[in-house]
């Protein structure tokens, strides 16, 4: 039984690799160019999400494979993201900087 109808060509792989390199260069560029610092975090998040998506969809073949694999990966991924966001909210303001008080009232 095969669930892949067509393997992506080497051409696709090379183009993805080129995109990954360009995105990394952009990331490092944004880091070094002071003008971008106000938008550093959102831009970096977008760029790294793009790299993540490219590797997962094309190198890990998730785009062309059964949607069930997308569920097996995507659901825990969303869960992890949700937990991360929740923890950030829970800790935001709960700790003081530099050895101050205990986990305080919100």
């Amino acid at each position, binding site marked *: *039984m095969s*669930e892949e109808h067509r*393997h992506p060509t*080497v051409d696709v*792989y*090379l183009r*993805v*690799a080129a995109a*990954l*390199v360009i995105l*990394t260069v952009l*990331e*490092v560029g*944004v*880091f*070094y160019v002071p003008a971008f610092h106000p938008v*550093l*975090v959102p831009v*970096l*998040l977008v*760029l*790294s999400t793009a*790299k*993540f998506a490219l*590797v*997962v969809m094309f*190198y*890990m*073949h998730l785009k062309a494979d*059964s949607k*069930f*694999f997308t569920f*097996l*990966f995507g*659901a*825990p*991924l969303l*869960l*992890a*993201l949700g*937990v*991360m966001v929740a*923890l*950030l909210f829970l*800790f935001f303001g709960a*700790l003081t*900087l*530099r*050895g101050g008080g205990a986990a305080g009232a919100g």
Partner: protein
Amino acid sequence: MTHAATAHHTSMGLDNRKMAFWAFIGSECLLFGSLISTYLVYKGRSVVGPYPHEILNIPFTSVSTFDLLMSSLMMVLALAAVQRGDMKWGKIWLFSTALLGLVFLGGQVIEFTEFVHKGLTMSTNLFGCTFFVLTGTHGAHVAVGVLWLLTLWVRALQGKLGPANAMTVEITGLYWHFVDVVWIIIFTVVYLIQ
């Protein structure tokens, strides 16, 4: 017992091992998610230095990142070669992937040693323990991957790897790409967003 001619029918038409492996990768999202969450929650809370901006070497780590990304390319090229039966290139690409993995690990060793010399250890401060456990766990995953790849490479040298068992290469690839993807996140969250 003689073998009955039962085809290995599957209810979803998907390979068992591939399904198990995607479930495993899902599980690893929670593992690394917890590690990264802790890093983020403790970011900026170290009571003493060294602090990230004093010690992280972006140019060096950028090269490591590039190395790992290229290793993912080698991995898919290895898979493509094995799938079309071209074992000469299959072996070359498999070995190259492992080699780039080893280079990455070498880079980690150099980086960690540098940090220790500059006074950042596991027990120095929060940055120390969160950084080393997060990147150390990732590095351990890379090391396992390198071992796995070299094992496949030796199997190929023995003539025991080919298009018929390309699935093992595909699953190795899933592992390797996932480890790469985790690094993409670490590079951004730990190194670039300080």
